[in-house]
C-alpha cells in the first residue's frame, strides 16, 4: 500500500473553502484514493474516492493531477461542524476476497473557527 503524507493540522474560518493536500508518491497504477472524515468520539465516515482528474459529490471535491502523486480534498464553505480529522487513504484495486483492509495514516486535524 502506498504511504500517504498529510499536514498534521489546519485552521480555517467559517465560510472559507478548505483544501487539504495529500502526497502519495508511490501510488500504484491500480490504486484508488479515498478520503474519510472522523468527528470526535465517532467512527470514520467515508467522504469521497477517485482515481484521476476530478470527482465531486454533495460533500466535497477531490482533485487528482495527471501524475496521481498527490490529491487535494476540497471542502466548500466550511462550517464549525466540519471540524474533524480528515484521512487520506490509498488502496488496491480490486479488493481482496475478504474486503479492503484500510490503512489509515495520521490524518489532518481541521479546526474551523467562527
Amino acid at each position, binding site marked *: 500500500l502506498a504511504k500517504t503524507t498529510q499536514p498534521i493540522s489546519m485552521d480555517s474560518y467559517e465560510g472559507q473553502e478548505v483544501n487539504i493536500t495529500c502526497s502519495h508518491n508511490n501510488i500504484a497504477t491500480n490504486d*484508488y484514493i*479515498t478520503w474519510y472524515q*472522523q468527528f470526535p*468520539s*465517532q*467512527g*470514520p*465516515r*467515508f467522504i469521497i*474516492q477517485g*482515481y484521476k482528474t476530478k470527482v465531486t459529490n454533495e460533500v466535497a471535491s477531490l482533485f487528482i493531477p495527471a501524475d496521481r502523486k498527490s490529491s487535494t480534498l476540497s471542502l466548500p464553505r466550511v462550517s464549525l461542524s466540519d471540524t474533524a*480529522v480528515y*484521512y487520506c*487513504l490509498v*488502496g488496491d*484495486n*480490486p*479488493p*481482496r*476476497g*475478504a*474486503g*479492503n*483492509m*484500510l*490503512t*489509515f495514516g*495520521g*490524518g489532518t486535524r481541521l479546526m474551523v473557527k467562527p
Partner: protein
Amino acid sequence: DTAVSQTPKYLVTQMGNDKSIKCEQNLGHDTMYWYKQDSKKFLKIMFSYNNKELIINETVPNRFSPKSPDKAHLNLHINSLELGDSAVYFCASSQVRTNSYEQYFGPGTRLTVT
C-alpha cells in the same frame, strides 16, 4: 436506524479478564471489520471477514479473535486483557465491490483496562 451498532459503548475491566464486544450491521453487507484506535488516534485494521475468508493483521495478538454467528454480526473476543489493549475499537462493514473503498463504521467501544 443505526447502520452499524456496537455494544457496549464503554467497557472497563481488569487485567487478565476475558471480554467481548458485539457488532451488528443492518446494511446487508457481506464483509465486516474490526479496527483499533489507540491513544495517539492511530486507526489500525485488525480483521477483515466475510463468509469466504478471514484476514488477520499480522500485528494482532492471538488473544484477539473475531467470531461471526451470522452475516450481520462480527463479535470481538479478547482473552487475558492487558493494559495496552486500552483503546477505542471500531467495527465496520462494507459490500465488497471492485473500485469501492466505502466502509461504514460503528460508534466505537472505549475499552479501559486497569
